[in-house]
């Protein structure tokens, strides 16, 4: 497929069972219909992984894909998606990370790398341009992410390789283990590290000496300069440089949607102590960035005093910072940094880990779980020793940690208590924004194709609380009022389509979406300049819609229906009693009705109609779903 710019035009399929690999050509029709990254992975998952497949069996595939912008100088184009059927949720598994892995994969010559089958012994796979080598990993079994990275680099005598590594949590059978690039770039949602472990693969290592070129260089250069200027001139520029996503915590507290003590409150009295501002002033020593980023927002921190003096690392992001502080009632920022660091080294998803711990603390508070049941740990809110101890126990599946290691939904089943109190949707634990204070976000969690997650939609426009925006964009003023529920179906489907396009092109969503830069109009031009493919803005949005629908079709085939598009009971029935979001509950049913209407999905079942799927060219899915 050499005629398209941006892409390498090659897919690498690695058969671990036989220890062989082959290169196939990237289908041009796939590029046009799904663009890249998350889109490529979702389409192949649908086509290649039939319903009922065991997520941890050799017949599940693990897909790594990046997008056409990656490897070019397009600002922030550094990301990749990893997808498989999820062992945590049993539906679509998908996760995304930045850093320097994705660009290296492109320079090695691949748009997508697929791990198939299962190796009989532990290996790591070293892909260096055209060479694929299966290397013994028995000396790496049980080792942490940092150690593994160091040993691989020294084994290979090459410090320029990029690694995607699993930690001991994945090897011990934790179902929400992640895959880590550049040590702490976590692709950790939905248990993709657990899938990699099931294949006997400790790491995927890439090194590339090739190049990426674009279809229309003059046009591309002009667009890049325009976008660089937009980024630099943006009102959020310095806040993001200084604090990254940790800038959000105080804003969330002020608006009353900062999940506190397991969503029992929307404000945290110690918010300032655990804020991004404090982190920046007292801990951060240097900024860092992903590949090709012109607004580097990662931060390297050092803890200089106290119990955790000498601790250092990169991050944390808001989800980790908030999850290990207000969510579990912990006021020690240092403990949160230590918890984040432990999760990175052990290879755990911070959100499910933190939700598990917070859930246990609420059960205890309500008298539903005793300390004795949890290995004698002090389960009072925010106990630092308990937080750190439980992380280790989960990663080793030791004591009560074993019960927590399959994710909160299974934990509640096994315990026989507290299912109503698990803050998860479809088995995936929700993030650090209370949906009672952000109704559009909440609808996003309810319908997201990978379970309770904000990154599928993240309709930040409702934060503006400006009815004029809602009226202008969706014809519904309430659509952009955060506590209102009307118009959210329109808002969320728009943002889902937008995010799917960005996840397919693979720049940074924090910048390209949250800062309103890569609109459908601009994306249309960027796609033409980079790849040569000509698409109208409406066709670009259509790619997003196609990705959402193929993901939905995958989930429907696995049994997902309207009843699954819901939120935990607390949000639907109990209003917040304090803060700026008090007094409302989440109006689920009318929002789902409106959303399905926008999507062209059956109101009763939540299954995409045959007409919707055919309009998007998803004929095979249309035929499959008509049999259900």
């Amino acid at each position, binding site marked *: 497929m050499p005629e398209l710019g941006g892409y390498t035009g090659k897919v690498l399929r690695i058969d671990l069972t036989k220890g062989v690999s082959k290169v196939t050509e990237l289908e041009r029709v796939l590029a046009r219909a799904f663009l890249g990254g998350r889109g490529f992975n979702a389409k192949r998952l649908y086509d290649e992984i039939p319903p009922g497949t065991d997520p941890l069996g050799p017949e599940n595939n693990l897909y790594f894909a990046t997008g056409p912008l990656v490897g*070019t*100088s397009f600002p922030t184009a550094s990301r990749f998606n990893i997808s498989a059927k999820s062992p945590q949720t049993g539906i679509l598994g998908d996760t995304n990370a930045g850093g320097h892995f994705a660009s290296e994969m492109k*320079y090695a010559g691949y748009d997508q790398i697929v791990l198939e089958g299962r190796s009989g012994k532990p290996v790591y796979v070293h892909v260096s341009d055209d060479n694929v080598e299966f290397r013994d990993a028995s000396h790496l079994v049980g080792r942490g992410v940092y150690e593994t990275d160091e040993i691989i680099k020294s084994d290979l005598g090459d410090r320029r390789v990029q690694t995607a590594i699993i930690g001991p949590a994945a090897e011990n059978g934790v179902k929400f283990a992640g895959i880590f690039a550049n040590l702490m770039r976590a692709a950790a949602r939905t248990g993709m590290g657990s899938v990699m472990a099931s294949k006997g693969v400790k790491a995927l290592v890439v090194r590339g000496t090739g190049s990426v*070129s674009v279809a229309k260089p003059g046009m591309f250069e002009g667009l890049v300069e325009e976008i660089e200027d937009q980024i630099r001139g943006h009102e959020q520029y310095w806040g993001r440089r200084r604090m990254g996503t940790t800038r959000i915590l105080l804003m969330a507290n002020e608006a009353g949607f900062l999940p506190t003590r397991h969503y029992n409150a929307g404000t945290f009295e110690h918010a300032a102590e655990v804020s991004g501002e404090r982190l920046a002033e007292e801990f951060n020593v240097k900024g*860092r960035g992903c590949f*090709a980023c012109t607004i*580097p927002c990662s931060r390297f921190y050092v803890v200089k005093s106290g119990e955790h003096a000498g601790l250092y690392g*990169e991050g944390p992001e808001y989800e980790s910072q908030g999850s290990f502080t207000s969510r579990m009632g912990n006021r020690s920022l240092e403990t949160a940094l230590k918890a984040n660091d432990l999760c990175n080294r052990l290879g755990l998803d911070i959100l499910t880990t933190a939700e598990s711990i917070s859930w246990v603390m609420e059960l205890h508070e309500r008298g539903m779980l005793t300390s004795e049941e949890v290995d004698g740990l002090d389960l009072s809110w925010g106990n630092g020793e308990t937080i750190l101890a439980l992380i280790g126990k989960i990663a080793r599946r030791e004591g009560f940690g074993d019960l927590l290691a399959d994710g909160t939904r299974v934990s509640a089943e096994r315990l026989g208590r507290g299912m109503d109190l698990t803050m998860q949707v479809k088995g995936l634990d929700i993030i650090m924004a209370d949906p009672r204070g952000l109704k559009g976000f909440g609808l996003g969690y309810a319908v997201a194709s990978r379970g309770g997650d904000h990154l599928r939609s993240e309709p930040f426009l409702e934060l503006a609380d400006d009815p004029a925006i809602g009226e202008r964009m969706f014809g519904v003023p309430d659509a952009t009022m955060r506590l209102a529920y009307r118009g959210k179906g329109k808002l969320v489907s728009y943002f889902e389509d937008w995010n799917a396009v960005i996840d397919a092109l693979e720049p940074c969503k924090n910048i390209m979406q949250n800062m309103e830069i890569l609109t459908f109009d601009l994306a249309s031009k960027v796609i033409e300049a980079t790849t040569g493919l000509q698409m109208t803005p409406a066709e670009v949005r259509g790619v997003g819609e196609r990705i959402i629908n193929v993901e939905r079709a995958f989930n429907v085939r696995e049994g997902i229906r309207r009843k699954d598009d819901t939120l935990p009971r607390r949000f639907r029935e109990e209003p917040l009693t304090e803060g700026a979001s008090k007094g409302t509950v989440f109006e689920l049913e009318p929002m789902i009705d409106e959303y399905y209407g926008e999507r062209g999905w059956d109101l009763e079942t939540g299954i995409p109609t045959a007409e919707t799927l055919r309009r998007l060219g998803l004929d095979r899915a249309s035929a499959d779903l008509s049999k259900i």
Partner: protein
Amino acid sequence: MKRILVDATQCAGCRVCELACSYSHEGLFSPSLSRVDVVKEDKYGLDYPVYCRQCDECPPADACPVGALSKGDYGATVLDAEACINCGICADVCTYNAVKLDEASRPLICDLCGGDPVCVKKCPTNALTYEESVQVTDRPEGVFRELRERWGIDA
């Protein structure tokens, strides 16, 4: 003489310099064709772009068996591509690892873009500047050690 100077406390390791360099010199986005090379230690959050230092004494020029390297404008070491026999000795002897070789063993050396280095213009954090300076003798290992000492980590 003006030189490209690196402030390692500001470098975020984004490698925008590598991309700008390879694109302006080769018309391709390819770090392996860049004249600048960002050395990184993720564990310690450290990044350091390595450039030709425009040394007064240039071992690669002295060692080149065919005299293909010489001092050109702005103090840059200039390659006579026609004379070069792709032996790679220059890369071996450069004290600062600032000479890279491409796949055909062609030396890639910073030419300062005719006195207006594109990497400096594109650096998003202003970690790179182009200004009058004596020769810089820093090496990434030394700079990294110094920063770790300053931060008090594993020093």
